[in-house]
């Protein structure tokens, strides 16, 4: 197994780094009530990857070195984000209703592309489930650079992003301060870039799982604070990537991404349980001393 880890260590590193970024981004998206919109945008990115492959000739090998699939992911994601924000601002129907309709349409569009270009079927599976094992070359570099940039973005702008997430959650999108804020635009642009590149390099399932599983599970341990919550999310998703990937290398029938997702869920639940138990013991110890 060590020999295999040496071969794949760069893919593991990039996957783990992207998982950490996604989990922090997901905590903020969840607090801004954008989980369903993120799923829709991720589906748009998946469809964009397929469109990019078609435009680059439709051949699997060529597509891996073409800029069109990731560009397609970003363009489709941005378009769908813009259109969905406009549709939601009109308030003609509920938020969930609009997004489900868009998601379903994109899913149908994706399958329509596959039906017309059957040679893309394996690429569809890769876009959906991802393949961390084959992450190499341009895909690896693109994913790694965006993940590194994402880490720095969240590290240096923690306070501003958290303040904005709080304002949006409590006051809604009509808060006069957030409406005029360029930091809101920057956050949205970074989120679109990170999600698009992650879907392109690592797949829809990996992206959505890393975005929301750790943060949702840890939200049940409400006595932690923001820093602890974000640190937990990043740690769990990183460890899950490393462990899940290693497991799939040793047990060849275990698929990589589902293994990572399963370990992410288990590790989140375990971490939440340990944290809650620690807080309960600590508070009962304090009460006993008083």
């Amino acid at each position, binding site marked *: 197994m060590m020999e295999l880890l040496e071969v794949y260590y760069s893919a593991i590193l990039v996957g783990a780094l992207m998982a950490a970024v996604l989990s922090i981004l997901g905590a903020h998206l969840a*607090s801004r009530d954008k989980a369903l919109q993120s799923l829709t945008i991720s589906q748009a990115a998946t469809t964009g990857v397929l469109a990019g492959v078609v435009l680059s000739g439709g051949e699997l090998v060529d597509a891996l070195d073409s800029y069109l699939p990731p560009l397609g992911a970003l363009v489709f994601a941005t378009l769908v984000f813009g259109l969905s924000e406009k549709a939601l601002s009109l308030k003609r129907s509920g938020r969930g209703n609009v997004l489900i309709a868009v998601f379903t349409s994109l899913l149908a569009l994706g399958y329509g592309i596959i039906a017309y270009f059957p040679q893309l079927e394996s690429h569809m599976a890769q876009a959906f489930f991802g393949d961390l094992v084959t992450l190499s070359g341009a895909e690896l570099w693109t994913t790694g650079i965006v993940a590194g940039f994402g880490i720095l973005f969240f590290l240096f702008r923690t306070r501003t992003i*958290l303040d904005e*997430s*709080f304002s949006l959650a409590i006051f809604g999108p009509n808060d006069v*301060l957030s409406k005029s804020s360029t930091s809101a635009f920057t956050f949205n642009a970074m989120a679109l870039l990170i999600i698009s590149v992650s879907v392109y390099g690592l797949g829809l399932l990996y992206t959505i799982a890393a975005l929301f599983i750790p943060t949702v599970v840890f*939200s049940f341990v409400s006595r932690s604070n923001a820093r602890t919550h974000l640190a937990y999310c990043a740690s769990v998703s990183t460890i899950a990537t490393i462990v899940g990937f290693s497991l799939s290398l040793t047990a060849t029938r275990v698929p990589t991404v589902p293994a990572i997702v399963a370990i992410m869920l288990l590790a989140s639940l375990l971490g939440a349980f340990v944290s809650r138990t620690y807080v309960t013991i600590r508070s009962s110890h304090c009460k006993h001393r008083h």
Partner: protein
Amino acid sequence: MTTSALISTQNLAFATPDGRVLAENLSFTVHPGEAVVISGGNGSGKSTLLRLLLGMSSEFTGFIDRYTDSVGYLPQLQDNEFHIPLRLRDILWMSSPQLEESKICQKLLTEDQLDLNWNQASGGERKRTLIARIFLQEPKLIVLDEPFNHLDQSSRKLMIECLGDYVVNRVSHEPGLLIVTHENHFQEREFHLPVREVRL
């Protein structure tokens, strides 16, 4: 008190989406160092007027002039939880790291209250946190939509006192207050500063 205005309206008129007139020929100005209270019953158009004043809607005739972009706004709260666990102290820290030096914040929230999680805090504690947050941002104009809802008498008195203190004691600039409420008969002695009422 300086003569420059913070926000003013002239011959303002607006209506509901189905055409019911809410206000006509509405003219008033908020100056630094004073509180303007907009009062009226339910459905009289108070929140609509606020949205117009803050530029969130343009469905009106007449004139609205905003002379400052430095606005602290507290809308009506929807009792929303926040997904990421945040202590009240962290919420204030996000606005200003100089939390410990702020005497008004110390008046509004105790040390124990500051360590409460937002999702566990009461409605009154949340409101006081949001007011303190506005104070830490040091805006020139503070706009409050029904700030006294769901507050008991002592919390209401404390909030009015703190709002008055904020306006009177600010050294760098003289702020103004614009308050929308269904309550009647605010008096200057409650705020310790000039109060004008605009009735819808």
